[in-house]
């Protein structure tokens, strides 16, 4: 029932006032609605920014692991095994951080220096010092953590990011430090 009046008012608003300048009309309403759109955008931005707090109370996933020179070439360091579940290994060209979680059922393997391998005590999976699995039921190599050098030259290991060999991620520059 309101149909006719609606169309009426639409027509009249523009034409019916002789002194009205169509240009001014457009100008002001453009400014008004543009500003209104900006306001709505501003509200949206407010909500968006509000969703990102300035501080987090999450447990630390990064740890500092000393200077690269503290690791010998060919060494499998167990320094951070208990505290952070990480082995740091240095070979001829690079340093990388291996997760101490067996890919079979999540046990913690042991490093056997004499046999130069990781051996999982649960089901006997074996891994080379590179993390590649070679014996036992483990379906895939151990995972590597993100590793990089801090400003002061110390190694930082970031456990939030993992690299899996079978996905070809070990060539990612963040998965090792070249020395």
């Amino acid at each position, binding site marked *: 029932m309101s149909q006719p009046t609606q169309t009426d008012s639409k027509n009249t608003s523009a034409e019916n006032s002789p002194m009205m300048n169509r240009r001014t009309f457009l100008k002001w309403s453009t400014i008004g609605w543009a500003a209104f759109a900006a306001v709505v955008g501003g509200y949206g931005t407010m909500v968006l920014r509000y969703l990102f707090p300035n501080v987090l109370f999450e447990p630390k996933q990064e740890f500092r692991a000393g200077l690269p020179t503290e690791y010998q070439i060919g060494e499998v360091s167990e320094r951070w095994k208990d505290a952070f579940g990480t082995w740091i290994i240095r070979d001829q060209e690079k340093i990388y951080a291996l997760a101490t979680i067996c890919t079979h059922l999540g046990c913690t393997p042991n490093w056997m220096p004499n046999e130069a391998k990781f051996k999982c005590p649960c089901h006997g999976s074996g891994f080379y010092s590179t993390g590649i699995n070679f014996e036992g*039921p483990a379906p895939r190599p151990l995972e590597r953590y993100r590793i990089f050098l801090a400003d002061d030259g110390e190694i930082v290991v970031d456990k939030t990011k993992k690299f899996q060999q079978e996905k070809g991620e070990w060539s990612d520059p963040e998965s090792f430090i070249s020395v």
Partner: protein
Amino acid sequence: MDQFKHLINILARPYIMFPAMIAAFFFVFPPTEGLMKINRRLGLYKLWTNKGGVAIFSFMIASFAFGLTDENFRLIVTKPDNVPIVGLIFLVVFFLWLAMKQGWDNDARQAKGLKPNEAEDAKENILVWPDLVYIELIALVIVSALLIFWAVSLHAPLEQPANPTVSPNPSKAPWYFLGLQEMLVYFDPWIAGVLFPTVIMLGFMAIPFIDNNRKGLGYYTFNERKMAISIFLFLWLILWIFLIVTGTFLRGPNWNFFGPFEYWDIHKLEALTNINLSEMIYMIFLQKQMPSNILLREIWGILLVVGYFTLTPLILAKTLFKDIFKSLGPLRYSVFIILLLLATSLPIKMFLRWIFNIKYIIAIPEFFLNI
């Protein structure tokens, strides 16, 4: 008996079950006249009669009862959070039958030149008080009673306290998203988890604007809307409900597939090593080194994907979907066909995986862009 269960376990494997379902689907819900004829000849429409309904439900209840005799089946089906899905299966089948039955009845009436049942009914007006209000009240009471019985007989699950360092194997999303998780097997998360849900939502919203068939409003019918119903049911039943059922009941540790009567052995291994299309072309066919240029490396896949979304619509418009193209017009048709092609990309990717062991058609891990 064991042999029989073993057979079912094998038949339930996705690469057997899924093609079989698709094949059967188009005979049961024929989208075209041709298929409709086959359907008639095979007498499949008889499913949508009372007798057919009794048959369907007897079969379902019998198989379910038989399944319950098996320990592994029982274990997974009676898991508290899985019970709704068992209910879902029965409800969906029941309402599918109900809708189809009324549809075929109406179709039969219309074939005789009569109006559909609903039209007959609609001639008469009924006061809402008390008929409808009372019916509704009864429905509410039934559902309330059902909920209370359900709540009393089945505890809501509460597992170990949350432990962010130990993930259960398998870790499953809530059941209504298991379809998406199942897609994750075949697609990267950004497709399965973001692109597909968005497209599904938008696609569903677009249905009223794509379907310009004015027939079939306000009454059940199949014949008048074969194509629409067939496509909708394909998406909803096969690509959504069926994937949820698979994800819930048939996916075990390490997201490995397990038959309904199979023990969820955490040690089960499957050969899951797949090859990217580019690797296949360069390393297996051409026996060459992979080019270092990404674009050059993935050009085949890119061509394929672009071709799929540009050439296929054109070809289809000239052949299979000629009529549809005509009735929809170019704009509607493009939207329709893109949505449809996106939907069919899932089964296509599945088949590529099963047959050619293909992982990604385009693999650019450098930009997290894998298709």
